[in-house]
């Protein structure tokens, strides 16, 4: 475990990360992982992150060493696309049982490796360490080393037990495994001055292929994409690239930085989400390649392609402008850089009422401010209840977010679009942004919404009937028991506070605002806000009456 601890410390101390670099020395080492709050944590673990980062290598067998939970509950759930082998889609696991936990799982692991190599003969095997074998001390490094020697197939240990940290840390541990065991172990068949690496691009929904035709047109070759639609041989020989682009800087910046140190490959952080960002990225790639010796006309050719594609994209978005006039969007995203999408949404005529900045850097925030002005709310963290209320109050016409908040929007009968990793449409590059706008239009103007928001006509009738027949109607007579029952009633579904408590607080302190009620009681005032307002309006306190 000591080597893993060292790796984790090393990863946290990443000089390539601008955000971390701007912190004072002692904070820098603690990294970005926030301590989890038991009982209110969400998101994946380090193993999850490592698997996500490496699984898009399509011809590799990915073997998970652990009990059934780690692979059995999670395999076959990501939408990366492959142009060749389908081996990556198979789920391999040692499915450790009680005996393995007691006597150690190394034997089972080496048998499993042997079975896979004999049956599937992959160019390489990645072995993922999980919590339970890490706890009982299974040494996967040693098993992998022995297997590599025995079978001649590279068997790569990925040290990523879930409990060492977050998904993001797992991404980086995957990167470390590649750096230590894979990159630079083979040589490419040929090299050209136009070879680049893409790092942190996973080809979800086949997105990479939306941009690849532009590279092909310019003669730029993707020597290796880490890891979308990647092959083992490509990543093993990726150290011969001339330049690199970090597509998702949050996940694998350590690979880019260390490849720069070791092999002198310059890199930049870019994005293919958004029209302007796509152009900037293409420009940067061309510039870096020319700096490293590619012919200078690459830059002119790139500019020509950019001009053509931009004109096409803006023209395609133009017709949506009048339709989107006055429509408000709420953008909640972690993965995709918020401002990449912001520009295109604005160009299409949408008004942005809020955007999340939880994972944004200071520069990101400045950029958002620049693009949107003061009207847009920057959201650090929004609890689902507040999000639901915002949508229910129609403060936004559509929400764009990842799948986790999907049902918050849908249950509030608000259009919603998935722009995170589980989405089934590809939104990358110029084509992708047009597709995004198309999808927003389709969602916003679905005639279904109007029907859904309308209450059933018989509901009002039912309520009237209930009033006549319900025992609550008798309570007006003033019986003591009914009064107790009335006052004990929770005012809201969140069950925080009952009616009596609020009435008492209002009476004894002359409260007039929700804010004040919140201070004197344990009412949260989120979803109950409206109920409290009603109470304040409908029943003026006795003290107030006396004053009058």
């Amino acid at each position, binding site marked *: 475990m000591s080597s893993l601890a060292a790796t984790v410390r090393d990863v946290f101390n990443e000089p390539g990360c601008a955000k971390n670099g701007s912190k004072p020395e002692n904070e820098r080492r603690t990294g970005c992982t926030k301590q*989890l709050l*038991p*009982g*209110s*944590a*969400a*998101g*994946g*673990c380090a*193993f*999850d992150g490592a698997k996500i980062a490496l699984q898009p290598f399509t011809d590799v067998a990915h073997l998970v060493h652990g*009990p*059934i*939970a780690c692979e*059995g*509950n*999670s*395999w*076959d*759930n990501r939408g990366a696309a492959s142009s060749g082998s389908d081996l990556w*889609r*198979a*789920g*391999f696991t*040692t*499915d*450790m*049982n*009680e005996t*393995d*936990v007691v006597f150690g799982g190394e*034997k089972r*692991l080496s*048998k*499993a*490796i042997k*079975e*896979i190599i004999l*049956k599937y003969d992959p160019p390489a095997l990645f072995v993922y360490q999980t*919590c*339970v074998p890490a*706890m*009982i001390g299974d040494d996967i490094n040693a098993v992998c080393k022995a297997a590599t020697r025995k079978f001649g197939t590279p068997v790569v240990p990925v040290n990523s037990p*879930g*409990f060492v*940290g977050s998904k993001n840390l797992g991404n980086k541990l995957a990167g470390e495994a590649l750096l230590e065991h894979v990159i630079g172990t083979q040589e490419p068949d040929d090299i050209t001055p136009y070879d680049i690496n893409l790092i942190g691009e996973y080809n979800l929904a086949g997105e990479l292929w939306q941009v690849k035709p532009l590279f092909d047109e310019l003669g730029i070759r993707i020597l290796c994409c880490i890891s979308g639609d990647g092959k083992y041989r490509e990543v093993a020989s990726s150290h011969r690239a001339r330049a690199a682009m970090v597509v998702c800087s949050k996940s694998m910046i350590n690979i880019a930085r260390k490849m720069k140190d070791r092999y002198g490959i310059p890199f930049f952080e870019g994005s293919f989400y958004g029209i302007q960002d796509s152009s900037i990225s293409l420009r940067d790639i061309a510039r870096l390649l020319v700096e490293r010796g590619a012919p200078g006309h690459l830059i002119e050719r790139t500019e020509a392609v950019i001009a053509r594609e931009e004109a096409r994209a803006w023209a395609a978005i133009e017709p949506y402008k009048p339709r989107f006039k006055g429509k408000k969007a709420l953008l909640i995203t972690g993965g995709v850089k918020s401002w990449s999408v912001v520009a295109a949404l604005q160009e299409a005529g949408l008004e942005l009422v809020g955007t999340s900045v939880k994972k944004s850097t200071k520069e990101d925030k400045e950029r958002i401010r620049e693009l949107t002005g003061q009207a847009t709310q920057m959201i650090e963290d929004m609890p*689902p*209840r507040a999000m*639901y*209320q915002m949508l229910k109050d129609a403060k936004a016409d559509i929400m764009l977010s990842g*799948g986790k908040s999907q*049902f918050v929007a849908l*249950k*509030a009968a608000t259009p919603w679009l998935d722009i995170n990793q589980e989405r089934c449409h590809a939104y990358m590059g110029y084509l992708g942004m047009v597709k995004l706008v198309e999808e927003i239009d389709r969602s916003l103007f679905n005639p279904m919404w109007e029907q859904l928001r309308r209450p059933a006509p018989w509901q009002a009738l039912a309520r009237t009937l209930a009033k006549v027949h319900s025992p609550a109607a008798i309570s007006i007579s003033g019986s003591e028991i009914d009064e107790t029952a009335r006052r004990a009633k929770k005012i*809201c*579904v*969140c*069950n*925080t506070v009952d009616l009596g408590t609020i009435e008492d607080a209002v009476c004894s302190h002359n409260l007039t605002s929700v804010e004040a009620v919140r201070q004197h009681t344990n009412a949260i005032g989120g*979803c109950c806000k409206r109920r409290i307002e009603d109470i304040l309006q409908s029943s003026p306190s006795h003290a107030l009456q006396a004053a009058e």
Partner: protein
Amino acid sequence: MAVVMTPKKACAVNPLKMSQPIGGAFAFMGLRGAMPLLHGAQGCTSFGLTLFVRHFKEAVPLQTTGMTEVTTVLGGYDNLEQAILNIFNRAKPKVIGICSTGVTETNGDDVDAYIKLIRQKHPQLARLPLVYVSTPDFKDAFQDGWGKAVTRMVEVLVETPAVDVPRDPARVNVLPGCHLTPGDLDELRAILSDFGLQPSFLPDLAGSLDGHVPDEFTPTTIGGIGVDEIALMGRAGWTIAIGSQMRRAGEAMQAKTGVPFRLFERLCGLLPNDEFIAFLSEISGRPVPSKYRRQRGQLVDAMLDTHFHIGGRKLAIGAEPDLLFDLSSMLHDMGVQVIAAVTTTHSAVLERLASEEVLIGDLEDLEEVAKSKGCDLLITHSHGRQAAARLKIPFYRVGFPMFDRIGAGHHNSVGYRGTRDLVFAIANLLIEDREQNYRPTPDTWRTSAPAPRPCLRGFTDRTERPIP
């Protein structure tokens, strides 16, 4: 009589099985205002959460104690305490269901003792029910976790009625196995109500995961059976357990409250439903409503109409034991040959499967046997789609998870009506397959077809199977 085989291989390929703790957590989702809590690392929870969300397309409450490397070494008390307090303060749950995981079981956390200590330290939790169930990942499977959790719910939440409290013969407890969908529960509720019986389902997923739009947002489960209703289950006249996984829960109920229980291992097919309806008629003292006489007639007719297409098919089926037994028995009744049967965990019903052998294994095993034995119908959960594509045979999705089709929660295969709809769906799938893939051409019969093989049922000797 099937022989139960256990696997010889070290590596599970394309797992059929899911882990025990999330099966336990799933059961807690059928309680109202509940928060299931996995005592383990956060990945244990997030994988389960993703699985449930993808299956039901619903917001799913599920929390973690967020064990880290350090807290694992030190023991999980602090994390469990913090998690319970956090959930108590933020989500205001009516009940918290706690399942252990591989991490905390390997570590040997004594959760029962922890809970006692937490209750002592925090008197505000005095009235909050905490139900703990031990569910290590490295033992048993999804179905076992469900069964154990329900048994614990009975032990902790059901009250032993006082001696002089009379039983209400109209009240019936129903303990459904995890292979029943919210749609199945709704169907059962309707059937029981039609006999004048008042059912209490434990757990009741139909209230929480049936995909309805609630009026307000809640961080806990939005429906299901209430804790107060569970407490009164001891006053019912009967307990009906469905699926052999619920035997222990039924026994626990009888031991604690004296309510007699009857186990129905299957509720799909003609005879099991005849038995079920007869039982309801008996305990309610009412004649069978004409509605069910009609439905029975419809099922009989459906079996007549579909047996041309279903009969004689060679089935490869992979499912958890109770679902496997339920479906394969029904299809066997319709003339299907159950050639390849793969399941996840041991169960008493496996020996009675209508196949020669049943293997506790994975989808690779199922695919290999299906291929070598020429099966022409594959039934398993959504993960079987890759195998079906390679085998090029019709594929019917059942059970959990079903993430690549919509409406999984409303599938219905219990009762006369559910069985009728199921045989129609499978027959239509087979008809479509024939139309698309077996249109005769002038050359269809020209080449010499391979001689028809006598159908070998079950597996051959596994050691002789070639490794592809």
